């Protein structure tokens, strides 16, 4: 009994250490890749090939002055980054890295994921509102509208996967893709999922609630030091989570020939991350109203269509 609990705690610590390391190196990867896309080098001074850059960044954030702006609602101002951070990290509890490398496999994992990741919007909204700053507030409002609009088609796209696999457990979903990945069976669903997850994670071309050219830094304008750091880690953890989910739901998870399961998983995840960065380096940002139009007039009807077609095919054959 006690051994079980200790083992579980060790498992949690190890997995979260791995996740946070991946997230830290995701920031480095993004900066280096963007550098190469943009005919420059990116950070390469700290350690060999800039490998210690994330550590330096983290240390720097710790030693920055921790400010709370005057007239901010202090309670929510401090609570907001915590919510953002916790909401994303809690999601990883049900994310399996390989056949047995996960914290817990619950039968309603997908539902849990959707519920917990939606909590993140509270962090952003509260940050925008409690900062008592117009730019922050606008960022917060945009974030709320955007996240709510894209959560619905995101969930609908996932229902397609659930119908095919017949289970909400992520391990089962991955195992049911043994023969063929769901990206082949659900191409439209995959595209919808990709668009929505880009919007959910606040990535270009949908990085509207932070866009520096209009809102300076959106909801995080007034944040500094580790409060900003928590947002930052939360944001990249969200991207990492998104890449994990794409891999698990559509790219066959850890399945693959020759190499061990964990290797396949991380290859696929970082390939997705690379695509995210590639998209960021290529596209301009869409406008707020265009984003809403896209969600409600294009993506949502397509998601319904995808769902109905999937359901009909499943029942017929």
């Amino acid at each position, binding site marked *: 009994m006690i051994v079980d609990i200790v083992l579980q705690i060790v498992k949690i610590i190890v997995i979260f250490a791995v996740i946070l390391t991946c997230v830290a190196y995701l920031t480095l990867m993004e900066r280096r890749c*963007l550098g190469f*896309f*943009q*005919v*420059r080098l990116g950070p390469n001074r700290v350690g060999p090939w800039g490998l210690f850059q994330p550590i330096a960044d983290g240390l720097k954030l710790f030693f920055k002055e921790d400010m709370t702006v005057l007239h901010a609602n202090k309670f929510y101002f401090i609570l907001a980054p915590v919510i953002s951070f916790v909401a994303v990290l809690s999601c990883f509890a049900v994310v399996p890295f390989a056949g047995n490398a996960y914290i817990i496999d619950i039968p309603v994992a997908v539902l849990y994921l959707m519920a917990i990741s939606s909590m993140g919007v509270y962090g952003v909204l509260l940050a925008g509102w409690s900062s008592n700053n*117009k*730019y922050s507030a*606008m960022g917060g409002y945009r974030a709320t509208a955007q996240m709510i609009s894209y959560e619905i088609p995101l969930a609908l796209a996932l229902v397609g996967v659930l119908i095919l696999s017949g289970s909400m457990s992520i391990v089962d979903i991955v195992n049911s893709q043994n023969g063929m990945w769901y990206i082949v069976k659900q191409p439209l669903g995959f595209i919808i999922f990709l668009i929505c997850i880009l919007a959910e994670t606040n990535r*270009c*071309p949908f*990085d509207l609630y932070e*866009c*520096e*050219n*209009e809102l*300076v830094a959106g909801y995080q304008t007034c944040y500094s030091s580790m409060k900003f750091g928590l947002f930052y880690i939360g944001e990249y953890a969200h991207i990492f989570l998104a890449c994990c989910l794409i891999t698990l739901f559509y790219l066959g998870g850890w399945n693959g020939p020759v190499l061990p399961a964990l290797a396949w998983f991380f290859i696929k995840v970082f390939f997705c991350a690379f695509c995210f960065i590639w998209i*960021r*380096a*290529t*596209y*301009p*940002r*869409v*406008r*707020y*109203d*265009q984003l809403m139009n896209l969600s409600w007039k294009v993506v949502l009807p397509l998601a319904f269509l995808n769902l109905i077609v999937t359901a009909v095919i499943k029942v017929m054959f």
Partner: protein
Amino acid sequence: MTKKTITLNLGPQHPSTHGVLRVLLELDGEIVVDAKPDIGFLHRGFEKLAEHRTYRQNLVLTDRLDYLAAMSNNFAYVLAVEKLLGIEVPKRAQYIRVALVELQRIASHLFWLGTHAHDLGAMTPLFYALCEREDIMDIFEAISGGRLTPSFMRCGGLAADVDSSFVKNTKKFTDTFSSKVDVYENLLTENPIWKLRTRNVGKMSKEFCINTGISGPMARAAGIEWDLRKSNPYSSYEDFDFAIPTGLQGDVYDCYMMRIKEMRESAKIVRQAVDGLPESDGSPIKAKVNKFPAGEVYHSIESPRGELGFYIVSDGGKSPARLRVRPPSFVNLQGMGELVRGQLLSDVVAIIGMIDIVLAEVDR
């Protein structure tokens, strides 16, 4: 009754106001109800300073007007002074000047392209555009020693003659430049998101442009075929073969296309000027300057931003009695309030970018 709108202070310190422009926005949600541009944060009293310095010393000040097109400002100023003096500049000097200001136009447009794309969220074109701008800066550095503020022109000619390496470097640049523009166009021109963001945003009618006094690429985007290089040729522009691109709708996308096309045309002019450069016959590259007569002159050129004019009143002394600049950025900025009304906040950024302001020139 509560206020239904919020006042947003955009600038003077803001990532996309291109310097120290302050815009007071009245917002209803994200829709702009009213916009008041507030300028003057970079006022250095250029026109007053010019009254206390000699004609030759003033040249250095003109570099600092529009620091993204320093050569063009040099050029407009020396042309006005030469008009006052009534002197003829050697043909070789005229050709070199044309090559230099057209290179400067390309450099200015490149910088505009990069920052404008960045304003609309596309990061990468900025770095690509700066690569080519760097080549132009190197050419300037090689002949004048300065990159941003070369101060290379002189009343009557140039500070120094150029050598064969200038010709070689410039040819090398023009040979490859067109393919580089293709790269920028690949990233933006047909990009659906770019089109969504720029088409039908900040539309200007011909009448609006004429009434506001808008000139340069903005006016041409609205369909007005007005280019001082063609209509009032100066410094041998009549020798060169180039087209004046015009748009139809006068929106942000058209302004973008105008500047892209202008860069290609400018590269052609540079090539012609360098190819047809009259051989140096050993005579100085600068005409002799005698005593400054009393009188009034105005001379304007087509700068990268529009009609840039210098108005000089001389009382026969060593300094101008009065010097007045017609800065294109300042005049073009006047239409902004009208253009952004009823648009969204994101469009304000696009429209400020479309105007291509340099605040140093607006405030002087």
